[in-house]
């Protein structure tokens, strides 16, 4: 008599657990995307995938927002994109797949120009290439690019 009773309740318990786990799992995935933050890709390769990292900390995110907030509109920019179709280093792209507030859908920066894509595309000035240098230094610190690549990129800027 006792066994069927226990079996039934064990089954219900396991079923509830599975349902709860699936909810928290998907929630955990959503939270994970948001936690990963903004994806920063160093656009340098052709065949191999480009190296990338995430702006995870709030400090990094705020710094990024600050660069965009303080950037002037670039009225002189005439091309359709700041990332040229060339071999080798050609800029940095930041993607907001998680939909973080107050951050555009995507941003690209290269050689003093910033391309901001939200509902429309806007071009800004990256004064002294400050945003680009900031992101490159982060990539180096996080060991996404090694010293050799960092030096090559810096040399290509000459």
């Amino acid at each position: 008599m006792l066994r069927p009773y226990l079996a039934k309740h064990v089954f219900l318990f396991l079923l509830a657990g599975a349902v709860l786990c699936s909810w928290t799992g998907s929630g955990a995935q959503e939270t994970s995307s948001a936690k990963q933050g903004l994806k920063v890709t160093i656009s340098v390769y052709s065949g191999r995938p480009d190296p990338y990292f995430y702006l995870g900390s709030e400090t990094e995110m705020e710094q990024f927002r600050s660069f965009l907030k303080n950037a002037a509109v670039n009225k002189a920019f005439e091309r359709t994109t700041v990332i040229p179709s060339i071999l080798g280093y050609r800029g940095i792209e930041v993607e907001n797949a998680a939909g973080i507030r107050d951050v555009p859908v995507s941003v690209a920066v290269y050689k003093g120009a910033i391309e901001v894509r939200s509902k429309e595309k806007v071009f800004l000035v990256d004064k002294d290439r400050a945003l680009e240098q900031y992101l490159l230094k982060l990539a180096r610190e996080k060991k996404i690019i090694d010293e050799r690549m960092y030096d090559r990129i810096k040399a290509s800027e000459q």
Partner: protein
Amino acid sequence: MTLLAGKWNVAKKVVFVIALLYSLLFLWGCCPPFCPPPPPPGPGGDGQKAMLSPPTVSEPLYECSTAVSVAGFVPGATIEIYSNGTATIGGGVSDAPWGQSFAVNPPLTNGQVITATQTLGGVMSPHSKAVTVKSFFESHPEGLPKPVLDIPIYNCGGAIGVTNLAPGGLLEVFADSVVVGKAAGCGAGQWVFALPPFVTGQKVIATETLCAKTGPKSDSVAVIPEPSFLPTPVMGPVYEGGKYCTVSSITNGATVTVFNGPQPIAGHACSGGGQVFRLNPQPAAGDSLNAVQGLCSSISPTSPPVVVKPCSELPAPKLSPVCIGDNMVTVSGTAPDARIRVYANGTLVGDGGGTTINLLQAAQAGDVITVTQSLKNCTSPLSAPFAVGKTTCSIPGYSPGFWNDGGTVQDHNNCYNYSNNKRTDTFAQPGRAAGLSLGWADMRCDRVLDAAKADGILPLPPSGICPCKKDKIALVVWPDEDYHWYRQDSGGKWSHKPGHTEATNVDNSQHAIASPETADRGGYTEFCGYFCSCSDEQQGQGHENIQ
């Protein structure tokens, strides 16, 4: 009664035997054991129906021409040349399948449709591809070209070659205004005997006449003294059953003699370069042949001996790539007078000679093609098989709009996708489809190209031409960092797609890419080579198996 029953039984047996014999006769056309032996089986099995390939009529053919050149036939076949499918205007027997010129009568007229057949052993081939006779002067209002004499022309020279001719005309060679050689129905390049031979100081010119119009004279060439030293001629291999040999390194106008031991068996004056000689009498296996050439008293060293090889050493031909829809195959490594048989999946589909043999049915996807060569009763082994591709390839144009959508296509298809013109949305990597994975240490030419080969992408052949309308692509490497691919578009220029950026036809200096070897490639300093990709005219629809 018993006697009658016994006789009836015998009668029934007799009737049965007769019925059996008649049924055998009906089935086999004969009564064993009196039936003839079955024909020797080919690779396709017993008793394949005898078929001959249609020969090839050389193009172009011009009005007023008095000869037609035919090639690709079985040596010894009877060639017939037809006007408009029915009227025979020329032909004959030839064992020179690399190309035989036959006189035609009357001369060709504008609009005539010329075909040829070959017949051997009572079997006639289908008609060749038709060639329509054109008027040379309608397509060349400037007139006949200026003939060009092969130089230098030496004292005692007994032959001369002339190029830059309109096929079919009358070539005449003059020495001090006297005709010393002529050829009616000449080829685009033609050699003639010079009789009498040239003499030092003579001025030699050539002219061509077609439809009673004589073109410009060639430049005049003075005959010079013969060289004191002549190079050693080079003989090609000779196999048992062969009637011909090849000799090269011939000095312009020299007389070549081929010996079998001490006995001369072939020889005449030749234009410079190489020549095919008919050997008479035909040598046997083990005979030692050699050749010399001479101009006046200048005689070359004797060539190294060429021992006639036995039938067992007759090599299989080499087969060039065969593409879907091809109506001919090209072979090499064959004796000049060999009979070439072509098989598709073991079934005879071509029977001719020379280096290009027409097929009785076009090559189909997946066909496995093999060939043999035969001299008299000697047949070589089958060649290495060639599997006809399963897909028809074509070359794309430069149309970057497909790739540069600013979204999924652009972001998820890299240089490897673009060069192979295949959209996978996987940022394809060489070797991934074959289960390989390239790492940092593999960013070198040999590793990346091995990975591409694993995907089935083959290097450019020595000819420099991708077979079967495959597209030429090129690989470069940024040592220890990355690889990059270019593709040649249908216009002949090159384009590429650096990673997830836009496809473009300019290099890092914004110059059009005439060649990946000379383009500004940034850090991709190592050029690894060219390859052939089965692409497609439609963007993104290439047929290579990349992932």
